[in-house]
Each structure stands twice: as C-alpha cells, then as structure tokens.
C-alpha cells in the first residue's frame, strides 16, 4: 500500500514537471514560431487575392497578380539587380574577409587587438540609414567628398558620377554594403579560426613546413565550413532583402536602375496600394530566401540531431 501510494505521487509529480516543462520551454517558442509562419501563410493568401486599395479584400483572384508581376519590366530589372546584389555583394565580402581575417591571424596583432577590432567593427554597429547618409555625401557627384579629393590630387580622370550613373549605380550601392558587412564577416571568421582543434592542426601543418596559403586552403577552409555556411547565409539574406540602402541613397533611381524586389514590394504595397502585387513580390522574396538557406538548415540539422 505504502509503496503504491508513493508510486502514484511520484507519477503525479513526474506528470506535473512534464506540464511545467511544456509550458515553460516548449509553448512560448511554438507560439512565436506559429504566429510567424501564420503570417507568411497570410501573405501567400493575400498574393492570390484581389486586394487593391487600403481596405483588405480577400476575394480570390487566382494568379492574376502573379501574371501582372511577371509581365512588368520593372520586375525583370529588379530580379536582375537582386542577382547582381547576391553575387557582387556576397562573394567579394566573403573572400576579402577570409584573407583579411587570416592576415590578421598570422600577423599576430594580439597586442593592438582591441583597437583593431574596434576599427574593424565600427561600420557593423551602424544602420544602413547611417552608412547610406554618409556614403551619399561621399558619392555626391559635384560637391561630394570622393570627387573633390580626386580633383585636388589631379586625378580628375578617375572622377565618377557614382550613384547618378544608371550603368554603375548598383555597384556603388553594393560597395556600401560591403563596407558595412566586411568587419562583421572578419570577426565571425576569426572566431571560427580560433577553435582549439583547428589551432592544433595549423600548428602541426606549420611544423611540417606547409606554406601559409596552403594552410589556409587545405587545413583551415575545410574545417570552418560551419562558420562559412552561416556567414554565407547571413550575407545572402541581407543582400536579398536590401531595402534601406536603396531607399536612403537612390530611392531606386535613376529610373529603375537601382530598384530591387524589396524596394518595389514596399512601393507597391504602401504607396501604390496594390497590396496583392506587394504580396506576390513578398512571396518571391520569401521563396528565394528559403532556397538560399536550405544548405545551412541541412547542415545545422545534421549537427544538432545526430
């Protein structure tokens, strides 16, 4: 009897701790995640509706707005520009950061490290609005900083119209993006260099007489796949959803030459009040983002659950 009674309370206690575990650890995360995906689903639903104007309208319109979206030349320009952003914005950042991070490591600037790190990180703590404001001033064609300095140095032939030149404006914007994210990338890579296992491997390779570049490509790179993968994903997504830089520096201009999907989405939804069209653009952005993060998700899944 006694032992049975104790058994029941034990089971009861176990049941109660289970409930509290669910309430405290599981439900909040489930709740937030559910709302997030509920909203994504809602956006997809809106993209199939006929919502024009300020008041919500959910009557089914099928693919009407998708057809419209794909027929617009603005969409084509945007997709092209987004592709340029993804390639030119992300890959150079990754490679320059990799070499600089490695350079800082072998240069062994451990003494001045906190100063160097401060200098490396300062753009990362600024918003795109701040960097956009700053670089608008640098790029301004007639009074701007860069052109003025070039004239002063008798290098006028290097002068550029920068962001007012439709042919190259995208690249000048992307340069702001690289400026902003480079330090962040360096810090992440440095952190992943500094695992004990990797340090030991590098030491062993150095004793064996491996060159610096050889060490970087043969030993370090294969062993920081995780760091590179998360950095790559972060950079790709940031380049994909770029909106602030375009808004503050060029507002999509000249013409549509620096327009991107995220900017068009904002304009379509909140200025032209073609909410269904905005939702279509949002769905496209989401789908691209989803595809881009699949490699990292699979990697993380493998790491955590096997």
């Amino acid at each position, binding site marked *: 009897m006694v032992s049975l009674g104790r058994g029941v309370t034990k089971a009861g206690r176990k049941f109660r*701790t289970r409930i509290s575990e669910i309430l405290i650890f599981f439900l909040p995360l489930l709740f937030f995640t559910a709302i997030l995906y509920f909203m994504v689903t809602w956006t997809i639903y809106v993209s199939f509706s006929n919502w024009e104007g300020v008041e919500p309208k959910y009557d089914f319109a099928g693919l009407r707005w998708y057809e419209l979206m794909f027929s617009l030349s603005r969409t084509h320009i945007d997709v092209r520009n987004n592709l340029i952003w993804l390639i030119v914005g992300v890959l150079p950042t990754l490679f320059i950061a990799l070499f600089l991070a490695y350079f800082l490591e072998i240069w062994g600037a451990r003494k001045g490290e906190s100063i160097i790190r401060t200098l490396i990180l300062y753009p990362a703590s600024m918003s795109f609005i701040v960097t956009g404001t700053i670089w608008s001033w640098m790029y301004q064609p007639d009074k701007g900083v860069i052109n003025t300095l070039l004239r002063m140095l008798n290098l006028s032939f290097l002068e550029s119209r920068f962001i007012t030149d439709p042919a190259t404006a995208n690249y000048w914007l992307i340069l702001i993006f690289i400026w902003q994210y480079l330090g962040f990338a360096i810090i992440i890579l440095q952190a992943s260099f500094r695992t004990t296992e990797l340090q030991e491997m590098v030491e062993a390779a150095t004793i064996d007489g491996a060159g610096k570049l050889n060490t970087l490509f043969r030993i370090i790179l294969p062993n920081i796949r995780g760091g590179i993968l998360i950095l790559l994903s972060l950079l790709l997504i940031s380049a994909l959803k770029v909106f602030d830089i375009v808004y503050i520096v060029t507002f999509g201009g000249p013409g549509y030459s620096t327009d991107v999907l995220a900017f068009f989405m904002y304009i379509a939804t909140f200025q032209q009040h073609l909410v269904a069209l905005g939702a279509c653009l949002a769905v496209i952005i989401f789908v691209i983002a989803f595809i881009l*993060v699949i490699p990292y998700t699979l990697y993380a899944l493998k790491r955590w659950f096997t």
Partner: protein
Amino acid sequence: MNKSITKYVLLLVLAIFLLWYLLPLYVVVMTSLKSPIEITQRTYLLPGLELRFENYVEAFKLSHMSIINSSIITGAATAISTFFGGLGGYFLSRFKWKISKPLFVLVVIGMFIPYQAVLIPLVQLMATTRLALTYAGLILSYVLLNVPMASTLMGTFFFGLPKELEESAEVDGASKVQIFFRIVSPVAAPAYVSTAIIIFTQIWNEFLIALTLSTPYTTPITVKLAEIKGSYVALYNLQMAAALISSLIPLTFFLVLQKYFIKGALAGALKG
C-alpha cells in the same frame, strides 16, 4: 627581389583598403564639426576654423525624442526576445521530443525570413488590434521576428555545454525548470549578453518595420534620420552629426561588451 615587389603591392592594396575603410569616418567627424559655409569651401580633409559642437546640440534637439523611442522599443524587445530565446534554445538543445526536429527546422528558417514576407499581415494585425499606435506594436513585432534568432544562438550555446552538471542535478531530484534557472542560466550569462548585443543592434538599426509601423509619437531613430536627411538636404554638417549620434548607443555596446560578443554565442554558433 620578387618577394619585395609582392610585398609592396600588398602594402599598396592594404593602404587603399584602409583609406576606403577609414576615410568615411574621418570625413564624417570633420564635416559634423563645420559650419555650412565651411563645407562649401570643400576642404574636407581639414578641420574647420573652430570646432562647432553646437551642430551636435542641434542634431540632438532634432533627434532626442526618437532616441528615447528607439531605446524603449529596442530595450524592451531585446530583453523579451533574449529571455524567450533562452527558454526556446534550451528546449531545442535538450529535449529530444518528436516535435523537436520539425520545430528546429522552422526556427532556423524563421531566423532568415525576410521581413517583407510578414510585413502586410503584421501591419494588418497591428492596425486591427490598434497596437500600431503604441510602442507595444513595434515591440511585439520585433519580438516575433527575433525570437528564432535568439533561440538558435542560445540553443547553440547550450548545445555546446557539457551535460554532466545537469545530469547529476537531475539524479538529485531537481526538475528541468529548476536546473535551467538555477544551474544553466548563470553559466549562460555571456551567451545571453552576446545574443542581446546582436539583437539590440539589429533592432536599433532596423528600418523597414520602423518605417511602416511607427507613428509620429513612436518614430525610431532610423526613420528620424531618414527624415533629417530628406529635409536638411544641404546641411551635411547636421546630417553627419545626427548620423554619429544615432550610432553612439550601439557602438558603445559593441565596444564595451565586444569580448562577450566574440567569445560568447557567436563562437558557439560556429562550432555548432
């Protein structure tokens, strides 16, 4: 011979790189301390005749309300999402239930969801609940969007934590809840700090949600700065002073807490 040429080329590249990296900061500081007339003289590398700190006073007058707004919104949203991120991260790293795996996938992808994909429903939700007119609307939006990131960062830290301590506490009869709050959380302090820095910076610098959901009473600093840039077009000194003021708070956090930032969750995130 060959080696020294490579060395010089390398040094040249490095010099151009440093110029590109540091010149903006230098010019911004110089410009922010000049009068508009001095700026028209285009001696951008030289300091002005007198350092006009009143530019900063004026820029602060223009932006101080929005700095307060941003502090309230960012502070609250960071605290809430980091707290729930800790709980969620602990769940993902320690509870191997059937639902853990799918939830993990949703959370990891959720970390990368572009804000555009939820913007229309978010505005609609905030408008119908009338939260759009308050701080709560913005705070809630940011919490929703940052809990996945906080959970992943915290979870990766817990994942790398040895389980022995928790297991022995469990043998002694402590519940998971007690273990989490009494044993794990104190150890996780650096991870909490670094997660908070990352999320704080992200929210402080956020523009899209801020632009669409803020009212004149809740305008955050990024939106205010865009306004200043638009309405004081020629007053570069004021623009630059305001830009510097608005970066001061995240920059201070970065500098004071950078050790945590690097050694904490980030380093953990990479191992995981």
